[in-house]
């Protein structure tokens, strides 16, 4: 843990959203509105194969018949889906041969965000796919990954290069009509990452995608598909930021993971979209995401780790379908809400195979006027003999205007299961902080220590650099909420 002493004023200064800048690049944006022609235009623009267009049209037809979900514990004005532009891309004249040809403005943006895109620097042993509004602008380390047979590329490229793989798996975990936002995403998604790990391969590096919304009043609809074949392993990281706008941007992503026999996917997210103005709650990103993994082969494992610190509204339930026998699903989450943020997040663990195991560790921290809900489902099917689940969802409240809720759904139809669920709620109290201070530990470090202790079980699941970043992020966000 970093022990450097920041003065209070430094911390307070830092406390504003430092990713709130916009980048002035010439971009090509579709006119606002959504109809079948827009869906066709997106498909045409991306020069997609016929099956993809059919997939989109089917999803769009389904979406028109669906209603926005009302059950989440969040409140927001109705979204006008006709007032959003469904495609925005930095203007490019030709196919890029190397990173040097990426618009320098875009490169500078990612530099400001601290994302090492420049392969020359080889700062981190992480392969990055950078998604700017609707398109992927740069993917690093592709060659090195290809040497071991790993495919890592933007979705649009995968559709051209490996259409049969995409066709085989796309929509198998999250069907087009799964829910309102998944259907919308299926109809209009523009880009995202595609990862294929061939059998018997351990990915030599972390793979990551960085999402950035830049244009006002656009929606970002990305689609990520990760397939991990037999006996393989990959660790995947995802990061997100957006500029500060007074209007709300919609982010409706879909992530699908598939693991074959003995495979493992570890998926980590640090989500720091712009959360809106802290005082008024104006602006911010609506983060309505469907993430689901299917442990298809026996003995496979999917692990979700998420640190949610941004977005005006979060609606997100990374789930695991434990279909194969002896499969394992894990969910580790820290959700921090402050200002006027609202989060309704959690997971679903669907036990179908025998001897399936899942664990859920969820930590919610709510400060200021925010509302933080954990909503999780553990469902054990009739044939899931010896299924095992452990859930723990703890909440921490900071200030008496915030609220914390838990809504666990536990459904069992098999008698050989063992399920435990527990939850507790507490607060960072003046007494705890006073005790630290009486021992000569500064207030900032005391808060950091309490938060770090509270979230330890989740942070230790994160890759090293993410863990440090996540911890700093939480401390900074909470700084002027306590005391």
């Amino acid at each position, binding site marked *: 843990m970093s022990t450097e002493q920041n003065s209070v004023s430094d911390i307070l200064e830092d406390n504003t959203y430092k990713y709130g800048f916009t980048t002035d690049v010439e971009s090509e944006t579709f006119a606002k509105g959504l109809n079948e022609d827009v869906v066709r235009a997106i498909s045409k623009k991306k020069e997609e194969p016929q099956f993809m267009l059919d997939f989109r049209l089917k999803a769009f037809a389904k979406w028109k018949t669906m209603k926005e979900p*009302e*059950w989440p514990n969040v409140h927001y004005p109705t979204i006008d889906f006709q007032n959003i532009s469904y495609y925005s891309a930095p203007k490019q004249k030709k196919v890029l041969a190397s990173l040097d040809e990426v618009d320098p403005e875009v490169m500078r943006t990612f530099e400001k965000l601290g994302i090492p895109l420049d392969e020359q620097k080889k700062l981190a042993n992480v392969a990055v796919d950078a998604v700017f509004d609707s398109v992927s602008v740069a993917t690093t380390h592709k060659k090195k990954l290809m040497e071991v047979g790993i495919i890592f590329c933007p979705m649009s490229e995968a559709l051209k290069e490996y259409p049969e793989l995409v066709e085989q798996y796309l929509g198998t975990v999250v069907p087009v009509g799964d829910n309102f936002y998944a259907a919308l995403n299926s109809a209009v998604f523009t880009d995202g990452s595609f990862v294929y790990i061939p059998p018997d391969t351990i990915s030599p590096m972390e793979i990551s995608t960085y999402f950035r919304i830049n244009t006002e009043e656009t929606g970002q609809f990305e689609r990520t598909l990760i397939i991990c074949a037999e006996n393989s392993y990959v660790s995947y990281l995802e990061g997100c930021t957006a500029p500060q706008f007074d209007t709300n941007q919609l982010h409706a992503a879909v992530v699908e993971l598939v693991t074959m026999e003995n495979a493992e996917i570890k998926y980590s997210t640090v989500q720091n979209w712009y959360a809106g103005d802290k005082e008024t709650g104006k602006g911010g990103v609506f983060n309505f995401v469907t993430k689901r993994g299917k442990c298809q082969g026996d003995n496979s494992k999917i692990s979700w780790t998420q640190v949610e610190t941004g977005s005006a509204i979060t609606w997100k339930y990374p789930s695991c379908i434990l279909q194969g026998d002896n499969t394992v699903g894990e969910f580790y989450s820290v959700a921090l809400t402050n200002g006027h943020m609202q989060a309704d997040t959690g997971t679903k663990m669907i036990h179908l195979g025998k001897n399936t195991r899942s664990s859920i560790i969820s930590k919610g921290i709510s400060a200021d006027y925010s509302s933080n809900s954990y909503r999780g489902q553990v469902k054990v099917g*009739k044939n899931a003999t010896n299924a095992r689940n452990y859930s723990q969802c703890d*909440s921490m*409240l*900071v*200030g*008496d*205007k*915030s*609220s*914390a*809720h*838990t*809504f*666990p*759904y*536990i*459904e*069992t*139809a*098999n*008698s*050989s*299961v*063992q*399920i*435990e*669920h*527990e*939850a*507790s*709620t*507490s*607060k960072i*109290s003046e007494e705890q902080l006073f005790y630290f201070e009486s021992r000569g530990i500064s207030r900032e470090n005391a808060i950091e220590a309490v938060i770090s202790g509270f979230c330890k079980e989740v942070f230790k699941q994160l890759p090293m650099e993410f863990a440090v970043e996540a911890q700093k992020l939480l401390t900074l966000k909470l700084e002027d909420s306590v005391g």
Partner: protein
Amino acid sequence: MTDTLVESSAESAFLDLHKKLLEQGRSALAELQVTALSRFEELGFPHSKHEMYTFVNTKGLVATSFSLPDGSASVSEDFVASHIYPDCKDQCLVFIDGVFDRGLSRCEGVNSNLMPLSEADEEVKAYLSETAENENDVFASLSTAFCDEGLVFKVEANTQISGTVQILFVSTGNTAGSVMHTPRIVWQLGKLSEIKVIEKFVGTEGGYFINSVQDWLLAEGAGVSYTQVQMDSIGSWHFSKVRVYLNRNARFHSSNASSGNQLARHHYEVRLKEEGSEIRLNGVSVLDDKEQVHNFVRIHHEAPQCISHQHFKNIVNGHARSSFDGTVIVCQGAQLTSADQLVNNLMLSNDCHANNKPNLMIFADDVKCTHGVTVGQIDEGQWFYLQTRGLSAKAAKELLTRSFAKSIIETIEFPEVVEELNDTLLKKLEARND
């Protein structure tokens, strides 16, 4: 709330039935009935994804066509006597088909406490019409809409009702067609008053739907010990709603033992309105075959320094279903709340279902709230240990199952109820254990 109707014919069948009720003559509670009926129409029967009925399938119930009780039911005194607990033989109020029967009751000791609902004081009347307007449970609205007369049990301030009061609900089935019974009791407890109540639900045969609503209004410092024993006939439906309002330092201890029937649902709505009040809800159900018991609890902590405890245990066997849907809501400003909630399920067969939804909604920061759920089966290690000590496999299993339920049963403070539950409820387990 967004309620769409399952099928509009289900509601209209009840509306038609209500017209027939009106044709029989004007009831003393007509105004209340009309309010409740319009609320019933607004709410409509729950669809399959209704948040209050996530685990309860009411389709079979609402599709059943009910007739009005014709008042011809006769229950023998022996039958009634066999269900009265020895301690309560001088204080037992008997309801036949949802209607208070003074003839069969033994109410000399508490006569002065009783009053027909239609003659209740203004305060109670205002309360009734307000709750009917704001009812959130469609079945409670239905009950009020069909309730011709209810009972007010009033305990004056600083009074302690000596002994235990038993309420016996006897429902007679009807072979000609299903009947709905709608008993209603309002309990009004004055300052520092106390009462102990045992309620028992029994039926002579199946084919009835008992849909009861009870309101407990506790003034400052009042104390209640309340035990419900649900032993309806198998082919019946049992819905009950218990509303509890607690003022300063009042306490309400409730235990419920259910043996289930084709659909039993207990709805508790508790409001801890003033500082220092306390509620304890315990429940146990032992289910076999196709029996069902569903518990639905909402506890609102509206004032600081209130306490709530919930502990529910379910044993499910055969094709039985149990569910628990409980929410503790800590309102803004209700600091120093202490709330805990624990649900344990023991599943004994591969075809049974145990569903749970323990929720917390917290709007205050200085609180202590916990909830926990477990679902499991007999612990192999414990089972094995008992067998190494010379118990047969069957006896060991029985011992473990019994002791699982006993920890709740033994919190009931009436020995005769504990004994009865040991004899009847837990006997169900033995029949199955092979």
